[in-house]
């Protein structure tokens, strides 16, 4: 530690002056400035194309919000089906989740010609105002519990959804046309002055689609 061994023959001991630095400017800063400009432009163009407009909901590999929107499920029926499944929980108390009803009390929806009719005009009425009296479903005549009017508790959208659900339920083997909220609205308009439940006889008079 003493100054005596300060000058030991160190193999790497060069000059101990701090190194110096030249004050050339050179051409590199100018070139760099140009390069930064070019890269800023190129980078800006690149980001314009690939950064998804700096949106929070555009991820790789999608390009823009419009593109992501175009990829959303467009099939309205699918949305109705999903909503209908929710709404059907009200119906499943009687008609059961399987749609098979309860023998002697609640008629089945599965395979029912009332449900699978080519047009929805009749079942919309049943849902809106209820049904009473004997009705023939799946080869049996049902005298059981009358169906209450539930139309006032649900929107046109929800009724359309649940009807679409029972008409198109693949698990039941159903594949009838979808019901639109507009159709429900039209029927609701027509029957707005009626409060009594429907009977099967009355319903038979109402035409369903082109078949009748």
């Amino acid at each position, binding site marked *: 530690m003493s100054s005596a061994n300060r000058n030991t023959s160190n193999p790497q001991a060069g000059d101990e002056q701090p190194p110096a630095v030249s004050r050339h400017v050179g051409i590199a800063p100018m070139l760099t400035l140009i390069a930064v400009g070019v890269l800023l432009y190129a980078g*800006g163009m690149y980001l314009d194309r690939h950064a998804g407009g700096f949106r929070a909901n555009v991820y790789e*590999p999608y390009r823009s919000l419009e593109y992501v929107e175009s990829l959303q499920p467009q099939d309205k029926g699918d949305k109705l089906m999903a909503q209908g499944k929710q709404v059907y929980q009200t119906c499943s108390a009687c008609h059961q989740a399987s749609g098979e009803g309860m023998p002697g009390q609640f008629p089945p929806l599965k395979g029912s010609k009332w449900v699978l009719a*080519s047009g929805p005009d009749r079942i919309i009425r049943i849902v809106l105002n209820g049904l009473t009296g004997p009705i023939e479903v799946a080869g049996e005549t049902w005298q059981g519990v009358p169906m209450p009017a539930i139309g006032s508790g649900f929107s046109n959208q929800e009724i359309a959804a649940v009807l679409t659900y029972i008409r198109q339920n693949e698990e039941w083997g159903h594949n009838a046309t979808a019901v639109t909220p507009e159709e429900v609205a039209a029927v609701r308009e027509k029957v707005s002055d009626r409060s009594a439940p429907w009977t099967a006889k009355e319903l038979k008079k109402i035409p369903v689609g082109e078949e009748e």
Partner: protein
Amino acid sequence: MNLEKLFLSIKGLGTVALWVLVALVAIGILVAVVAYANRSRGFRLFLVASVTLGSSWYAFLVAPFQQVGHEQPSVAEATGEIYPTAPPGQVKRGEEVYRSNGCVYCHTQQVRGTGGDIPRWGQRRTVARDYLYQSPVQLGSQRKGPDLSNVGARRTSEAWHLRHLYAPEWMVEGSTMPPYRYLFEIRKVVGDGSPDALNLTALGLKEQVSPNGRYELVPTEDAKALVDYLLHLKAEVPLFEAPLPKKQEKSDEKQNKKQQSGQQPSKPTVNANQFE
């Protein structure tokens, strides 16, 4: 200030112009401050450091935080289904086991939109919303083993996972995963034995562990929690920012079929899914 809104409001100028504008303003501020502070070399360097670090801090932490830091679970429009939901306690415990044993060093939890990831690891790419309830977020950076974002959908058997944790090479040929035998215990059978006990014959360990059937191999609570966590890992629910590309085509096909069969409504297609 919301970056997204800012960019949108000036979008008419074009991104390039915006870049130049931002750069000019930034340089202007810098020059002014530096000129003011020119008396001290150290302070000038300090300013350089703070401004540059601050810029990256803003661009890479503040701005993304404004965008995804407050994200909420998605609520499906039609069904009201919420995704993702807060995981139950057992799953949280499993997440702790996953973290403390450093599973992240071999397993990623991210499905990219490219690179063959989607058919192999999931239905769709993963997005920020998938990780809302994860902490720590175990994205990982290397795949020495498979990606686990959707392992709960891919491997649904609890027994398989437990056996795999105990003896990976027995379940997956050529696996380099270390066995996690310390998450299990071998103990004497009491009464009818534990309902969780592993099937020793299926593991080929009957002879080794309990030739006379008096011992059983039982997972610890940690092992069960870890498996619950793995089974919970699913990123399949379609989100707005991550639609399902495959399903889209499928539903198109379905629609076409419906239109075709719609002409003969008397022939319902039973279990149409089977034929697809």
